[in-house]
């Protein structure tokens, strides 16, 4: 920080501008202008490009409200986001705890990397790999029938649980990462002090560990919830006919039905919901920083 003060006296913005301009110009053209354009389009009757007459309208938003389908699907997507987030907490938090407080040295580093690694590999391909495991006559089916004496049919493919499994698999590394970072920062002597003062393991967990790692939990939850609510590829591949969610309806408007203004309105409503959620989470996140 000292460097900034020392150099700061020299004409700050004028020297910084040539270095900043290319990057921020690019972001403006490819992110910020498109997002504004989407808002603009969502109030139109037609695409101005197609040569047809267009005018401003609120129809796309009233369509959302008057057709019960869209709010229902938005709720279904929010519920999906909530369920996946909860499963990620249940599956990921204990793993983060073990990584931060039980494992040490090189084995911790190696296992941490192993947990994070799949997250940075292709999400589409990982979802596809579950299709092979879950379908009837797939690996899970074959393996269970080889072990169990009775014949059972496991066909989870194209079901709600399949979508949940696929999404939890995709996003749980996020939760492990954020919780690990906050859990690791907890001073071990706090836990020891609690224990030596007579608190049980459960009490230490409830009164010390979980409250102190709350920022990590919230950060992980926000990072998982937001993309899951907007997911469409995972429900399509693993959910089949049961996989109709808010995201898949938006996808349809752009690639199948070609009602772009309605798609823009639906996208913008999703964006608003997402921003509200991030705004609610941000005070807790800021306290962590």
């Amino acid at each position, binding site marked *: 920080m000292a460097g900034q003060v020392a150099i700061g006296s020299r004409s700050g913005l004028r020297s*910084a501008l040539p270095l900043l301009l290319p990057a921020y110009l690019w972001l403006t053209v490819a992110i910020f202008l498109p997002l504004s354009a989407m808002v603009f389009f969502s109030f139109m009757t037609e695409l101005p490009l197609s040569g047809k007459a267009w005018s401003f309208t609120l129809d796309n938003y009233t369509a959302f409200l008057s057709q019960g389908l869209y709010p229902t699907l938005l709720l279904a997507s929010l519920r999906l986001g909530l369920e996946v987030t909860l499963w990620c907490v249940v599956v990921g938090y204990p793993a983060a705890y073990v990584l931060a407080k039980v494992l040490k040295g090189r084995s911790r580093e190696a296992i941490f990397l192993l947990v994070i690694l799949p997250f940075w590999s292709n999400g589409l391909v990982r979802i596809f790999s579950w299709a*092979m495991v879950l379908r009837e006559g797939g690996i899970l089916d074959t393996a269970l029938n080889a072990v169990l004496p009775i014949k059972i049919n496991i066909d989870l493919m194209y079901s709600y649980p399949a979508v949940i499994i696929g999404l939890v698999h995709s996003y749980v590394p996020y939760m492990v990462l954020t919780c690990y970072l906050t859990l690791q920062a907890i001073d071990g002597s706090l836990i020891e002090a609690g224990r030596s003062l007579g608190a049980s393991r459960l009490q230490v967990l409830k009164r010390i560990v979980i409250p102190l790692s709350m920022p990590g939990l919230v950060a992980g939850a926000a990072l998982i919830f937001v993309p899951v609510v907007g997911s469409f590829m995972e429900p399509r591949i693993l959910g089949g006919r049961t996989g109709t969610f808010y995201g898949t309806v938006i996808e349809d408007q752009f690639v199948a039905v070609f009602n772009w203004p309605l798609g823009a309105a639906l996208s913008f409503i999703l964006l608003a919901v997402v921003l509200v959620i991030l705004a609610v989470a941000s005070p807790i996140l800021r306290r962590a920083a």
Partner: protein
Amino acid sequence: MRTTRILEWLGRLYIWLLLAFLYLPIIIMALMSFNVSPFYQLPFEWTTEWYASLWQNDQLISATWNSVEIAVITTIICVLLGSAASLALYRYEFRGRKFLQALLFPPIAIPWLITGTAMLIFFFGVGIGRGLFAILLGHVALALPYVIVVVSARLQTFAPELEEAARSLGANQWQVTDRVTLPWIMPGVIAGGLFAFAVSFDQFVVSYFLSTPGQTTLPVEIYAAIRKGFTPEINAVSTIIIVVSMALMLLTARFFKFGGAK
């Protein structure tokens, strides 16, 4: 403390279960890409037939080249623009610096479905349309914030006195940057570049909305194939992708410790 030891043992067991959950589907997919039966029937019989038939699939091969080209160009652009912006944000104090830093988060936090459809609308509206150029525009915008964040994290470990020392020894601004600052941030730049490559190479959602039948990338092609029905060829190409992207990330981790360097 016997209970402690049992609990720790259970904890280790749990981690291995989680790793099994994370890796089993991927491993199974990789195995099935070497299985003779196109319907994934067991018993397992070894073959490399599906990899061989990949070479006959012109559509997949051209999509793969598109993916590689776009990822390489994205990486180069992001490294140049991202490093410059990081340096400016680090070096200079000016009004609105905090705001510019905050602007990096919407592209990361907003779901790709929203960003992708917004780009489709806008690019169409201004006449860029869809296709490889539009995909490139989008990929750079998605990867750029990651590069700036990674390079800035590396810059945080830089000692500004080094620049001062070089300057007082008579080096001009360019020499200071070239001889002192750049060598120090190089690990961050390389990591940021690998990050950008991974973001672009694995990107599906945004490419999906911006592609046209002839101008498409590998993940989009795979998605179309999955929706038509499973074939072992998709397994083969998916296995190759996953190996490439994991290797990339391992390489990145070598250059850059997550959460800042020592």
